[in-house]
């Protein structure tokens, strides 16, 4: 369990993964964009607007995926007090919030031509908005304390409690009857979508995910360095706590 607890070991692993993740991301996104914008047909119902799907759906999936992995990391952080898990959760939430935001905005941009409205208080849309708030709450809670570990613990509890929202988003289209599209890719009995659209969608989705991996590694590295900065500052203060009079003076205090 604690094999990667040592940052040196983790960083060695990260050093291997990071360049690959970046290369794969660039390749997949380039290929995906080509298919999404040039080499795929317009939908017979939705016309050219269907191209919004290639950014809307991957960001929606990624937002859900990131929250799920954040909840898992938080659970590990709470149970095993694993510092790396805390750091991963902390590094994830801004990325998750960003992609939730992208999903909301592209959804709105799609909704105007398709449904004739930017926004509707539909179950999935609202649940997605709640997810956005959960991300924001997570970030706010992390930064709301003078003591970094205190914020991490509180945020971990929140991440776990908020996880109920993820299945609600996923299944809201089935549980309530809504404006929003039901699942057409990830569902029982295989995808109900033409392969000419499925290909760019999958390219983009995988590309987004590797992008997330790469960015996460960058941010985890930053957090590791920041933890060390905090520790060194603390040590500095601690050192300075001994007065100029010297150690002998201190012991005399008794």
């Amino acid at each position, binding site marked *: 369990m604690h094999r990667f607890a040592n940052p040196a070991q983790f960083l060695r692993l990260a050093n291997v993964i990071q360049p690959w993740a970046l290369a794969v991301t660039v390749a997949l996104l380039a290929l995906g964009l080509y298919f999404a914008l040039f080499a795929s047909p317009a939908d017979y119902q939705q016309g050219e607007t269907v191209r919004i799907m290639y950014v809307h759906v991957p960001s929606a999936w990624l937002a859900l995926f990131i929250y799920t992995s954040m909840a898992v990391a938080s659970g590990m952080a709470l149970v095993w007090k694993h510092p790396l898990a805390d750091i991963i959760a902390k590094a994830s939430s801004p990325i998750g919030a960003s992609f939730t935001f992208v999903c909301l905005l592209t959804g709105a941009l799609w909704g105007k031509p398709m449904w004739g409205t930017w926004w509707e208080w539909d179950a999935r849309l609202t649940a997605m908005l709640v997810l956005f708030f959960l991300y924001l709450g997570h970030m706010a809670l992390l930064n709301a304390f003078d003591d*970094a570990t205190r914020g991490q613990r509180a945020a971990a509890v929140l991440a776990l409690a908020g996880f109920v929202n993820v299945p609600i988003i996923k299944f809201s289209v089935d549980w309530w009857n809504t404006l929003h599209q039901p699942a057409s890719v990830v569902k029982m009995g295989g995808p109900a979508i033409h392969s000419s659209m499925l290909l760019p969608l999958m390219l983009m989705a995988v590309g987004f995910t590797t992008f997330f991996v790469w960015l996460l590694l960058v941010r985890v590295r930053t957090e590791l360095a920041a933890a060390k900065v905090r*520790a*060194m500052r*603390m040590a500095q203060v601690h050192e300075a706590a001994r007065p100029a009079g010297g150690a002998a003076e201190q*012991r005399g205090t*008794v």
Partner: protein
Amino acid sequence: MKQDSPAYRFSGQGLTCVRGERVVFSGLDFELAGGGALVLLGPNGSGKSSLLRLMAGLLRPAAGRMLWNGAPVDEDREAHGQRIHYVGHHDAVKPVLTVAENLLFWGRVHAFDQSVGAERAHRALDAFGLAHLAGMPGKLLSAGQKRRLNLARLLASPGPVWLLDEPTVALDRHSVRVLEALMAEHRAGGGMVVISTHLDVDLPGAEELHMDRFGAPARWAEGMWA
């Protein structure tokens, strides 16, 4: 103040405390028997308060264990809660409750299976010279009076282990003397006392624990990943 069973033993082995992201102390052992006393000494930030909180069960040790009569303390936190009296930096005095109400509440919560009579609480107030203030609301107390009210909890309900974090702050000289006498009486009855202080407190036969010996000032980065 007589303790029914004077054969208590309270000990800790290889205790490590991590706060924030820093190792405050590590490899600390202590051993206390009924009638014993331990004085925690050391400069600011050396971990005296942290050790007391560890003993109380407010903090968990990152490593090591604490035993009560040989049995691990964290197996039964409630029993441990009933054994100890913790006096920290804050006085836990509610401004709108009277002095007597404040004390009675803590007495009842702490000794929930025994009835803490108003009479016992009154004697506790008397010992600290607060009896004439019994009907006064907490918000009107001075710093030293609040501290004395907080200390009166020690007498309002029984508990063999007293954990006192700088209890003499804000006390006048007379009250310090009263506290010393009460600690002596408590120990004579088989209780034990752990106390942190920067001042001279008279505790005959007490063991001293110099916290700075267990410090780990240079181990900042690794501490987190220990």
